């Protein structure tokens, strides 16, 4: 076999060299450039995870274990996903004051959104789970309110009442009111099933379905919602209305009757 250099004056030599050079450049670019970008992302991500881990060690580890594996006081957080963290922490449910009691109530959130994102990044790094939804997913654009009402009545109304006012469950547990709850958190709750609420994953309740449900809730249960009859009395249905009518309506009439009869019309007051 001749030496390669012996063919350097071959008419096709220039073409071969050019091709090799192009391939090498392209290959090198492919090997380094995206890797560099990914590395930058990864650094930001690992920074968030590190910060989240510190926050976790302070606020969560006593119940959920040092590595999120769970203890007798709190469930494992492996695989619950960023959406669950964002819901639980941003609605103030976590960190819970105690693991006793029927259910952890909603309360004032003590973390900033940036801290919550760091916590979520850390928990998400423990195991794959649903990520935090974007505005596009829960926003009102392209939502069908009527379909949302149908879905809400079929899937949610049994516990949360027809217009999301909430209701009682067993042994002191309850389905909380959905009034004034951030649409993002409603979406996350459907996705992750916090506490005793069953989850409604995208496989059984699609993204579009969730968007429709949120739009319906916004239509029937917001500050701007019109109540044509006025005085909705909590919106919990005819029982409250009947009770109000009997006690306050009839009560007022009885009080007026007593007042009228108690005042004498005689000239000489006895």
């Amino acid at each position, binding site marked *: 076999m001749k030496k390669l250099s012996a063919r350097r004056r071959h008419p096709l030599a220039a073409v071969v060299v050019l091709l090799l050079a192009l391939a090498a450049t392209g290959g090198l670019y492919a090997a380094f450039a995206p890797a560099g970008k990914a590395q930058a992302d990864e650094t930001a991500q690992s920074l968030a995870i590190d910060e989240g881990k510190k926050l976790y060690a302070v606020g969560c580890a006593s119940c959920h274990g040092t590595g999120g594996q769970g203890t007798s006081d709190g469930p494992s957080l492996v695989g619950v996903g960023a959406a669950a963290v964002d819901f639980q922490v941003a609605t103030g449910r976590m960190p819970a004051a105690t693991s006793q009691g029927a259910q952890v109530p909603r309360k004032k959130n003590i973390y900033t959104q940036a801290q919550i994102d760091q916590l979520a990044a850390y928990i998400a790094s423990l195991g794959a789970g649903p990520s935090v939804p974007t505005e596009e997913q829960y926003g009102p654009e392209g939502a069908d309110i009527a379909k949302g009402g149908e879905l809400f009545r079929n899937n949610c109304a049994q516990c949360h009442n027809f217009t999301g006012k909430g*209701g009682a469950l*067993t042994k002191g547990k309850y389905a909380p009111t959905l009034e004034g709850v951030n649409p993002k958190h409603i979406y996350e709750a459907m996705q992750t*099933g916090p506490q005793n609420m069953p989850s409604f994953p995208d496989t059984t309740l699609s993204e579009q379905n969730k968007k429709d449900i949120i739009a319906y809730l916004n239509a029937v249960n917001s500050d701007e*919602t019109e*109540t044509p009859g006025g005085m909705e009395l909590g919106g919990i249905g005819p029982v409250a209305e009947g009770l109000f009518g009997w006690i306050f309506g009839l009560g007022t009439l009885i009080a007026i009757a007593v007042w009228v009869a108690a005042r004498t*019309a005689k000239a000489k007051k006895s």
Partner: protein
Amino acid sequence: MSSQDIPEENLPAAQDTGHGALGVADEKHPFADPGLPPHEPRIQDIDERAAKRSERTVALLFTVSMLATIGFIASFVAIPHDKSIYVFTLGHINAMNFALGLTLGVALFCIGAGAVHWGRTLMSDHELVQERHPIEAPADVRAQVFEDFRQGAKESQLGRRKLIRNTMFGAMAMVPLSGVVLLRDLGPLPEDKLRHTLWRKGKLIVNMNTNEPLRPSDVAVGSLTFAKPEGLEEHDHGFQNEIAKAALMLVRIQPEDIKDKRELEWSHEGIVAYSKICTHVGCPISLYEQQTHHVLCPCHQSTFDLSDGARVIFGPAGHPLPQLRIGVNDEGYLEALGDFEEPVGPAFWERG
């Protein structure tokens, strides 16, 4: 307390007004009837100007009522039916509802208030006594009625012509039977409809939300899914009748958490399918708590344990929720392996 402390009009001796029937105490009536207190006049009885004032007040109330009625008609005509206004404490209320309710309320209230004021201040307020009488008719009237009845019976020959009497009784006893027979027309008998649903072996389990057949991987642990049998569409005739029996809820429980042996056998990888209809009075029951696996009925608080064969753990329900036996077909979709073994929904007479 001596008799000097009692105001004069309350003393029992004032019998000279003539109202009381029994003024004197005797053996049979040991306490004397005090009778009515003496009549007291009102300002309006004494002062004509006060009476005029009362008259004007009553007339004013009636006039306000008339104005309110005119206001009612005007608001009905003038206010657009979809206009909404904000009223403090009432919220965003429909303007027309509010105006109609307010004006009609004022109109009715003013009629009532006017009538009461009129009655109290101007109409005569002299107390009248109406004596009570025995309800029984006097003896001669009673004797006359019995005599008339006897004579009528005699003239009609009812007692003598037994054939007429007996056939008449027969005819009158038979007539109500027509009404009883008509009750049969209230509807067809249920036959065995209560014992069967649309579920059959091989029917796919279709998600109510997406109208797509479900795969085992779609149903996550802790999730809740409502399903219907394949081929039953919402716009079908009789959809409501069929879904009322066939409505299904699917949950997924870790197989090691399932306590009931039959439930585990009838499940697929921990996915269990139960009837959504409460066995007490048939309410849709789906208040599912995913951590305890309890299902609560909102109507009467019957609670079922879905990890233990839907056993009743609280409340008035008499039977566990019927379970549907499920499996997976060749294409990987969830399917029913038959109908429910027992009738779904509330118990009935012949259920056994």
